[in-house]
């Protein structure tokens, strides 16, 4: 009843994360924060970054209203940010962006992206890439990085 492409976008891990919402909630003590809106749908995410004294990311927290893809993406992101240096963060964001722009051509690097590679199926759906990117753009902005194109 659903095509293989659709099943590949909405994998179980994604639907599960969309429900479980790892990292949901905004605690005090953020070292950076960003609020992003997806203009196509009006969905929003607010994302806090908590960094250690040495600059490493300890964790993120987020809140927002969005589709299963953006929600799962935020949840999956929050699973892989622990203890990352600035360079490591940049590398992971770049890898995720590359995956999203691949139109289904690449698999995604599990070492860098963990379970977030499951979002690779989204890249075949041009109207949904912004959904998956939304928390990542917020993350990038909260870290004070200029978003790459």
């Amino acid at each position, binding site marked *: 009843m659903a095509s293989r492409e*659709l099943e590949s976008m909405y994998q179980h891990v994604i639907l599960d994360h969309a429900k479980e919402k790892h990292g949901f909630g905004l605690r005090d003590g953020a070292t950076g924060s960003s609020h992003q809106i997806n203009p196509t749908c009006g*969905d929003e995410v607010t994302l806090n970054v908590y960094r250690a004294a040495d600059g490493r990311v300890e964790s993120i927290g987020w809140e927002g209203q969005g589709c299963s893809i953006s929600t799962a993406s935020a949840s999956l992101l929050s699973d892989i940010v622990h203890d990352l240096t600035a360079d490591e963060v940049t590398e992971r964001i770049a890898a995720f962006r590359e995956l999203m722009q691949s139109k289904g051509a690449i698999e995604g690097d599990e070492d860098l992206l963990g379970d977030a590679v499951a979002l690779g199926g989204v890249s075949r759906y041009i109207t949904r890439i912004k959904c998956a990117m939304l928390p990542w753009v917020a993350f990038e902005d909260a870290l004070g990085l200029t978003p790459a194109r």
Partner: protein
Amino acid sequence: MTTDVDQTTTAATLELHDVERIRADFPILGREVNGHPLVYLDSGATSQKPQRVIDVERSYYELNNAAVHRGAHTLAGEATELFEDARATVARFVGVADDEIVWTSNATEGLNLIAYGMSNASLGRGGDAARRFRLGEGDEIVVTELEHHANLVPWQELAFRTGATLRVIGVGDDGRIRLDDAAEIIGERTRVVAFAHVSNVLGAVNPVAELVALAHGVGALVVLDACQSAPHLSLDLAALDVDFAVFSGHKMLAPTGVGVLYGRSELLNALPPFLTGGSMITTVGLTESEFLPAPMRFEAGTQRVSQAIALASAIDYLGEVGMARIAGWEAQLGERLYQGLVAIPGVRVLGPAPDAAAGVERVGLASFVVDGIHSHDVGQFLDDRGIAVRVGHHCAQPVHRRFGVTATTRVSTYLYNTPDEVDQAVAAVADSRAFFGVA
């Protein structure tokens, strides 16, 4: 070229066999999407185009294309005639005079034209004749809570520019404009009342007569957003007695890039210009200029000529099919859609239930939420079966907020849709619940 639709029947609705012949006029409806025949249920956003309309534009460029109102050569004469005939066709379609029709890019530009014309009047443009358009502190502009952003943000900005106050008539829990609220809000200070004929989210026909009576009772101008009515109902603007109205061609079988502003002749001729430039002036000095009467006063620069001609062709097509029969058909589709959706567990349809007895008319459009599934996910699931619907806030955030949601899924029909397509959409919505694990 003529449409194949049976002209002899006088039934107040299309029949399935008519619709099947109509479908054959729309090339895109033969397309496949994701391995399924396209089921296009997003006409509320933009409609598809019959071959005849597509061909009219092509033929214009292959045979007659030239600058209108600017040349004396043969092509220019032909183009001008086609362009002005198109204006007359539109005027007849909505029951007004030719020179009360102004071409715009879309309905949005029409509403901005009125709003900017009024702020220019407030600055003194148009002199005494434009007095009734002047706004200032203490004056009020009234809209409703169900407006499309196109009929809301321009008034917010006009209020900002002039110091006037924007007031908003609420929508009841039943999804209808609160006339009690309207009676309270519309008063001595009211200068403009702007509202949608049919809501693009709630799908109900709004009480035009009542709101016009309230507005005219206090001498306020009425601006009607006819975007969702002009394509679907017989529209007689003179009979509705509104002062201004707007609609968009692309929602009624015509190309993108052309819209219509109607204004009562004496109002249009008193409203100061909005866009300025070529073709709307009589004399241009170095520091001051004089302007033509309406409608040309509002048509600065090279116009959307082929698009206007194509809109006239679309209107001819609609006229041949018959607006009453289209409305009858869509009312049936709308009823079927509404009943199908509300029967699905966890589905809530926004707006009033259709109820002929209580005078609640709905068009063939319904916006709904599926508990536990975001509208974009619902839409994606439908798209996977080739069913195109709209998801999101449909450029009407306030009415979504009013009903406690940020987004809905919207199914909207037109003359080329069938009951079977409506059923397919309803079935897919039901199936989406299992797919997303909420059933």
